[in-house]
């Protein structure tokens, strides 16, 4: 703790900002650069932040805007033009065994950026649809639609469309889905 609550609050948000940025970029160096720029920008405009409001949402808004700006510049580099990356993911055998960290990261990179960020904010950060809509600057219905499309695409990429045949407990699954 320091004498500056704003600094402490910023510091506490950094792990979430890094996780979000890395999930979008899959590159720690770029992710940390984006988070650093976010912190500098937030610090420069700290007078605009109203105490008692959602600092996390404000920081995520800054971060995603910075990432989008950079993404537009690098669009050609991140494109999977011939679909070979996605195809390689689809050929994985032993579906359940491959639902690991690396495969999830790779599959995420094959989802359009707007859907990926919606899924991360809702499914990983645990934000409400309303909070995510505010951060993304779109309607709540748009967020829901993007999350749904992201889940479908992930299922396709990871080959888990028919895992229900394995017979997991539907009550438990419903509990972990969170909307």
């Amino acid at each position, binding site marked *: 703790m*320091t004498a*500056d609550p704003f*600094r402490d609050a*910023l*510091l506490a948000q*950094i*792990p*979430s900002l*890094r*996780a979000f940025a*890395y*999930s979008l970029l899959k590159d720690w160096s770029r992710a*940390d650069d984006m*988070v*650093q720029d976010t*912190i*500098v920008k937030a*610090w420069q405009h700290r007078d605009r932040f109203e105490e008692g409001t959602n600092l996390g949402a404000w920081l995520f808004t800054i971060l995603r805007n910075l990432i989008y700006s950079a993404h537009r510049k690098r669009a050609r580099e991140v494109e999977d033009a011939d679909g070979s990356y996605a195809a390689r993911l689809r050929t994985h055998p032993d579906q*359940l065994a491959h*639902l*690991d*960290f690396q495969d*999830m*990261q790779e599959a995420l990179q094959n989802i359009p950026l707007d859907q990926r960020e919606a*899924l*991360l904010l809702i*499914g*990983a*950060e645990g934000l409400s649809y309303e909070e995510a809509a505010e951060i993304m600057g779109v309607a709540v219905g748009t967020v829901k639609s993007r999350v749904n499309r992201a*889940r*479908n695409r*992930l*299922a396709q990429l*990871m080959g*888990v*469309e*028919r*895992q*229900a045949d*394995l017979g*997991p407990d*539907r009550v*438990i*699954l*419903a509990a*972990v*889905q*969170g909307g």
Partner: protein
Amino acid sequence: VDLASRGLIGLSLKSMYDDLLNQPLPERFRDLLDRLEGDRQGPGDGV
């Protein structure tokens, strides 16, 4: 996508994200905040 698949994807996503959240924080961020705080306080105010 059926309910069970959605559950698997949700669990996998959360597990991956939790790993990321628990990564050690690079020193550069504390250094950055120190610098920003120092700049804000000015050269004579921090003593």
